[in-house]
């Protein structure tokens, strides 16, 4: 019997047919690259290179700006031309390092061979240091620095590592393909993290729409003690940290608490692959697999893109922007955000590019709330989106806080299910930002 999380959830069409089983293709090197300094949650990284400096692939170019921050390494070899601001996907400014790409010269310490390294006898501290040094962040979407998760706060102990191979977001297939192509490396990565956390149990959660990945990973996991593959029923947002914990080990993370509260650490398969590469191959996080997809795209697929490559080049590889495009979304259709600028460079945050045709890109006409309660039923965090959105509309921040607005994971189930097409998430998200600001300023006092 396949399990799933217990509260809420919706069933959007998964639309993975366009790019599923497309082999991971490496994207060609661009002539010029722009490497953003904000590619993670937390403090921006501080540039440690100067204008005119020559760097090799894998060299540290920006240091983490705090504990909750991540290092950034040169994805290309070449000359740094300037450190300035660039425009991000939403038209706002962000600091970035500009470089001219010259050749493809790697640091000698990086193992570029395709051999699988199975060595496991590392000290836990050594693994965590390596993860921190390599600038690894959660590649599932939130981009939370991984080393922070590996160091549980005092008094808390991790019991189980949950590996997120769910990819519940429609259209995206990059994690699926990664599991098929790099399954063995992922299993070694899981063993490394189990060692780092000093735990004996790991569960890989995979949704039922990826039977080949379930089969492949089960076969690989059966050779290793303590790793189990769990096939999960199809339901969005199963890839959410708290939902996945509920689906895999039937524990519910209390409101406002972190997964470590119930003894779980959750990491995405792509993150785990990055851990493998960092520890075994000495390769920092300089590229990721992203899905470029859409109904009318000529060559949808899964591309291995080094950070800093302009997204336009990746799009060109996938056959160029289709003529009927009405909207480009960074990430999947549920949690992703529409982009107003696709000249922006790829980075740790962009897990996919989705081209929606014009007919599908505009919202439906908004009508009145009919109090049907569908949004309450769909909310995986047990909130009342209709009420929260009304409170946000009336600027009732205190009441929103009382109704646990900070638990919202912004999955968009409420808006997806609303028969009146109300922009529930828009208001809830705005309220969450406001209330978050109020809570932070209160804490600062």
């Amino acid at each position, binding site marked *: 019997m396949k399990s799933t999380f217990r509260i809420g959830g919706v069933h959007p069409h998964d639309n993975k047919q366009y790019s599923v089983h497309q082999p991971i293709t490496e994207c060609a090197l661009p002539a010029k690259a722009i490497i953003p300094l904000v590619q993670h949650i937390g403090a921006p990284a501080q540039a440690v290179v100067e204008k005119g400096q020559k760097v090799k692939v894998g060299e540290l170019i920006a240091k983490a700006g705090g504990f909750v921050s991540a290092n950034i390494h040169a994805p290309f070899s070449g000359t740094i031309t300037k450190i300035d601001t660039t425009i991000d996907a*939403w*038209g706002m400014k962000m600091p970035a390092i500009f470089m001219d790409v010259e050749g493809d010269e790697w640091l000698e310490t990086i193992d570029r061979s395709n051999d699988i390294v199975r060595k496991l006898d590392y000290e836990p501290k050594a693994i965590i240091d390596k993860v921190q040094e390599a600038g690894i962040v959660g590649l599932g979407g939130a981009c939370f620095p991984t080393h922070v998760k590996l160091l549980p706060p005092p008094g808390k102990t991790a019991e189980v590592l949950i590996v997120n191979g769910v990819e519940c977001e429609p259209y995206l297939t990059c994690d699926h393909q990664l599991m098929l192509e790099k399954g063995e490396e992922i299993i070694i990565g899981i063993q490394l993290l189990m060692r780092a956390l000093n735990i004996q149990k790991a569960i890989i959660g995979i949704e039922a729409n990826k039977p080949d990945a379930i089969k492949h990973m089960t076969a690989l996991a059966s050779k290793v003690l303590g790793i189990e593959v769990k096939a999960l029923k199809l339901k969005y947002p199963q890839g959410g940290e708290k939902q996945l914990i509920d689906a895999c080990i039937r524990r519910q993370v209390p409101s406002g608490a972190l997964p470590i509260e119930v003894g779980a650490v959750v990491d995405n398969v792509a993150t785990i692959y990055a851990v493998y590469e960092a520890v075994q191959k000495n390769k920092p996080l300089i590229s990721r697999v992203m899905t470029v997809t859409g109904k009318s795209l000529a060559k949808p697929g899964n591309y291995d893109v080094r950070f800093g490559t302009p997204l336009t080049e990746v799009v060109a590889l996938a056959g160029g922007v289709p003529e009927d495009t009405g909207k480009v979304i960074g990430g999947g259709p549920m949690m992703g955000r*529409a982009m107003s600028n696709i000249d922006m460079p790829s980075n740790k945050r962009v897990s996919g590019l989705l081209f929606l045709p014009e007919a599908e890109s505009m919202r439906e006409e908004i009508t009145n709330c009919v109090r049907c309660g569908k949004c309450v039923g769909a909310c995986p965090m047990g909130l009342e989106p209709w009420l929260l959105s009304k409170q946000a509309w009336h600027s009732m921040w205190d009441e929103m806080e009382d109704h646990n607005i900070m638990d919202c994971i912004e999955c968009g189930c409420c808006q997806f299910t609303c028969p009146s097409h109300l922009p529930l998430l828009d*208001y809830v*998200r*705005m309220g969450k930002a406001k209330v978050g600001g109020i809570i932070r300023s209160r804490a600062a006092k």
Partner: protein
Amino acid sequence: MNLILISLAVLGVTGLVAAVLLYFVAQKFKVEEDPRIDEVQEALPGANCGGCGFAGCRAFAEGCVKAETLDGLLCPVGGAPTMKTVGEILGMAVGNIDPKVAVVRCNGTCEARPKTSIYDGAKSCQILHNCYVGESACPFGCLGCGDCVAACEFDAIHMNPETGLPEVDDEKCTSCGKCVSACPRNIIELRKKGPKSRRMVVMCVNKDKGAVARKACTNACIGCSKCQKVCEFDAITIENNLAYIDYNKCRLCRKCEDACPTGAIHAVNFPPRKPKAEAPAAPKAAPVAKPAVEKPAAEAPVANVEPKEEEAKA
């Protein structure tokens, strides 16, 4: 019959006992209140807008009565006359109060600021601002969803459908500041209303470098500092590629308006200029001399504050 009489008697006695009880309780727990609070409240406009910084008119009245001087206390809705009455009631002197008005510092009209995307989310500037740069490429300019219009309790700010920008009605605006805090991009500023509502304003808040700002909007301030050079009163400062006119120093000579290459500086509510360019000849006398010549207020060519007419057309 008997039943009615009994009921009447019981109710009557109960009422009487309650009345006596209430009377004594009211005497016992009587709250002594300064009668001047009521008087001051009476003198206030009663809009309860919170523009003074207090929770409402009553709270402001209490604040005035408790305060030792009226400095720093101002009812923006009532302005100088109201504060004068309050001063008379409390026997305190009221300082000089310049009437202020909300000014929308963006002139990114539809022609000047081409659309680069279409936004179809919830119609709220706050939400749009959280999402992305907006429908144009200017990350500082007006988003046009009308949060300020919704915030105004005096019907003083309206969207102009032609320009897509909000316009303030000088007559109705009470400078309560609600629109200022409603705007997520801090475009609206409370500025001195000026003599006969005449004022000079830099209608832009874009802090990008000139070339970038100009690319996003042809009406943008590019921080060229030409206005700063022609200003004889040291009223203009340039910071972060953006000019700012200090309304306390500005003498309304209109030189900066002529110097501005992008038309970002607006002279509001001035009468039309004479065909001959006389202004440069008599720089210092200009501000006082000019208004005396003609008075038409409605025909001001550069006036961007004519919502009444717009409404009538619509």
